[in-house]
């Protein structure tokens, strides 16, 4: 559906809410469009446009909750969906952890998440952007595979307690893998922004091309502990495992890396190197996020790790009430403060080490220590005396982001990146880490 204005969304939600007979009712309306081009073997493979909208109605009687949905918004459909959600609520058993819906909240000023130019991208513009990427492949005798997607959408919430919230957002994300014709070299680049004007598919494809041509004829190094420089696209896939695990309940219950014997937790303890500062901030100009979360709680600037100390954990409303603390929602996107050095300067300051473009197939091994395994991919290089000397074969690693951030050597400048595993956006620096554990070699290119 077309993006509804705040007033249009409010009016539609008010009409739906007027049919409610439940003790409490909350309605979320979302809608938007997304379009994409996927290419491989230097040719477009699939592309499409998707238009979707949903109204989700949650009705509660006491502590019994039911939900229903519609994607048609005439009066009869609205009435039918409201009564369906009420029937389901009556069928559901009581949930002692059910929390009443929130009343009116105060949110900060809107964040610059919606960029009209991104919402207005045409099929021709998308094709032109991909054409630039394909041209880089052809100019360098490489084979390109990539993906370009843009989306725009809105979300609005209204409930019977008088809470109303509205937000809009746009997004454009791009990733490209370029491979040498003989299959011996591979390079990768990925970026995501709210603003299409920041998306330079030509420049990013050139970076991937340089890595592809530079990574052919890789040498095998023995697995073991190495100093590594993780570019942001590599670092994010390990760091997001840490960001996503800062949950109070699992820590309190004793089943988290943040748990300690006797029901204690690491909240307030120094967990990692004191140069590590991790926070979330919806109004950050480089990484704006929504002012409210899924249940209507305000999203504010929160320090999660400050000077290496765990400062805050996220709480569900139920768990926060039980513990008598503020119900801090989990972050939408995370920022890790960096230093002043560029990636090139980090390399220059490295006597011996390995530059990692990307990490792949990250999976948990042990939740007790937050140990993960995965592999390097698409551009792994040996550094000696401040210079990239030669490409190296890919490694499998077994490493914990907690141990990794205790072995911090240096931080580069933070930049916006996107996880190739989850699609999560973050603002993080390149990281120089000592004693990073590579446990075996991979023949993969």
């Amino acid at each position, binding site marked *: 559906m077309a993006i509804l204005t705040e007033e249009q969304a409010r009016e539609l939600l008010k009409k739906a809410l007027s049919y409610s007979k439940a003790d409490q009712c909350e309605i979320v309306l*979302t809608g938007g469009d997304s379009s994409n081009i*996927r290419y*491989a*073997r*230097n*040719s*477009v493979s*699939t*592309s*499409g*446009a*998707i*238009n979707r*909208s949903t109204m989700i109605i949650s009705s509660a009687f006491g502590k019994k*909750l039911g939900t*229903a*949905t519609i994607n048609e918004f005439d009066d009869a459909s609205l009435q039918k969906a409201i009564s*369906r*959600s009420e*029937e*389901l609520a009556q069928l*559901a058993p009581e*949930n002692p952890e059910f929390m009443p819906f929130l009343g009116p909240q105060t949110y900060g000023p809107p964040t610059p998440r919606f960029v009209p130019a991104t919402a207005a991208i045409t*099929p021709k513009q998308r094709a032109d952007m991909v*054409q630039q990427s*394909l041209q880089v492949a052809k100019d360098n005798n490489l084979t390109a*595979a*990539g993906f370009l*997607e843009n989306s725009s959408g809105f979300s609005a919430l209204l409930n019977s307690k008088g809470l109303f919230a509205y937000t809009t957002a746009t997004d454009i994300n791009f*990733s490209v*893998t370029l*491979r040498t014709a003989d299959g011996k070299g591979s390079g990768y680049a990925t970026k995501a922004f709210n603003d299409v004007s920041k998306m330079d598919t030509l420049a990013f494809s050139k970076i991937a091309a340089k890595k592809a041509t530079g990574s052919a004829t890789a040498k095998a190094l023995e697995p073991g502990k190495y100093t590594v420089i993780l570019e942001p696209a590599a670092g994010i896939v390990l760091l997001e495992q840490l960001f996503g695990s800062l949950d109070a309940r*699992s820590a309190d*219950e*004793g089943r988290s890396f943040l748990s*300690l*014997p*006797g029901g204690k937790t690491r909240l307030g303890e120094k967990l990692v190197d004191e140069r590590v500062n991790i926070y979330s901030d919806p109004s950050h100009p480089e990484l704006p996020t929504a002012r409210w979360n*899924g*249940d209507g709680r305000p999203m504010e600037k929160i320090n999660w790790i400050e000077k290496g100390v765990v400062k805050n954990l996220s709480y*569900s409303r139920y*768990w926060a009430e039980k513990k008598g603390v503020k119900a801090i929602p989990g972050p939408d996107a995370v920022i890790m403060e960096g230093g002043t050095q560029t990636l090139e300067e980090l390399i220059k300051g490295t006597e011996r080490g390995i530059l990692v473009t990307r990490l*792949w*197939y*990250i*999976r948990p*091994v*042990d939740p*007790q*220590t937050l140990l993960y*395994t995965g*592999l390097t991919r698409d551009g792994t290089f040996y550094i000696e005396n401040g210079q990239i000397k030669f490409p190296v074969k*890919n490694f*499998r690693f*077994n490493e914990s982001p907690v*141990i990794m951030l205790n072995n911090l050597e240096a931080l580069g400048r933070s930049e916006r990146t996107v996880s190739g595993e989850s699609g999560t956006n973050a603002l993080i620096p390149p990281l120089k880490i000592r004693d990073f554990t590579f*446990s075996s*070699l991979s*023949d*993969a290119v």
Partner: protein
Amino acid sequence: MNRKNFLYLTGMGFGGAMLSRIPVFGAPVSPEAMLQSSVDVATKKRMADVVLNAARSKGATYADVRIGRYLNQYVITRENKVQNIVNTESYGMGIRVLANGCWGFAATDKLDTDSIAKAAAQAVAIAKENARLLSEPVQLLPQKGYGEVSWKAPIERNAFEVPIKEKVDLLLSVNDAALKAGANYVNSIMFLVNEQKYFASTDGSYIDQDVHRIWPLFSVTKIDAKTGKFETRQSLSSPRGMGYEYVMPRESDKIKGAPTVLYRDRYDMLEDARAAATQAEQKLKAKSVEPGKYDLILDPSHLWLTIHESVGHPSELDRVLGYEANFAGTSFLTLDKWQSKKFQFGSKNVNIVADKLQPGSLGAVGYDDEGVKTKQWDIIKDGVLVNYQSIRDQGHIIGLTESQGCCYADNWSSVQFQRMPNISLQPGKTPLKVADMIKNTEKGIYIIGDSSFSIDQQRYNFQFSGQLYYEIKNGQIVGMLNDVAYQSNTQEFWNSCSAVADQSDYRLGGSFFDGKGQPTQSSAVSHGSSTARFNGVNIINTARKI
């Protein structure tokens, strides 16, 4: 619906950790809405004809349309609480066209005549705009039209018709059994899926299909309060292409004699939960493994995932050709290896079959999502690579005259592309029991259940873990181990396969959520095997301190 919205809707809390890589589609509806029949077939045919005619009139040389109603039900509990019951429905239409030799796709949930005709025109416009990016036009293998046909999953009891109370009671009983057996925490979930799919194409097919899936699962946690250590044991269930009968236990479907009861086509969730609580406690006290080379005896509840990652994915033709290079990766099973007709993927004991027919499997359907009747074929024969998995626009590259029927889209709003059929290791041809395998093993580890899994982008190097590890010394199980993971290289691993148990041990494992493609799609696939032995595999110790 994205995962974030799903977690919000389901109030998953820690149970969300069990869903860490699950994309979720659809939106909640009431239970009785899920039992209402969707739009009748005659109406769907009329809608499909509107789309096909509109696409042709705009210049499409081929078009297909999928009208899909995708229903999910999630019953989510922890300990003695029902956290949520969510019914989701997603209904809409996906239109794929070929114009100027290029694919175009458009999807909409506005299904009035005007909107679907516009969507068809949009798909054609996209195809024409992108045709300038083509290096060569799409070539489609021919496909005859089947006319009006249908297929229904052969279920015994429609899980969506089972009262919610019955499902809730089962899960709460499971939780209670685990807690009484000593667990500190237990999360349990019942996932149900029903895909009501209508496909039509300019080839002249009008195919109506009704697909059902079920996955009951739990996670039990035991904590040592003194040390702060905790261990979990996940359920040994498999997701299946079955109805509610899967959770109705049957003695004849139990395999006894192993350190824990194992299950064929019926699952005893209560019994497994009790065992899980006991075993989670045993894991806290288990010996930490000594790294080195061991012979591995892998139960089908574990081996399915190794098959999936190291055989299923590398034999996907689209990966081999480079279509997945930017995301999932490529494959070491390059065309020259297949052309040589002598690439020794594994030992002579290794026979791998692809199929989309096996009753009760996740991959079983009558027709794929581009109108191809499903079938069965060999991938690895006596250890040698003999074939791949492919679809209509790629089959010609390996000389096929008809598609193998591996096309699938996870939703009406997703474009269909090549997805894995069931890929299964065939049982040994001579009688062999697991007990005999253990008897003949000097230094080994018996692994049951799946856990951590990771493999490189060309499917050479992998690392896997399990739920339960038992040390074998001189032909005897001598105790439980912990902190185990094995690392290997695919060809080396499968060539070390020294034995496969016989048909009596054959079982299906599988994945409800196999991710691939951009935008990422999820598909469900089963993998069958009997217990198999692999000699001299490298074991690492995963214990760390923070």
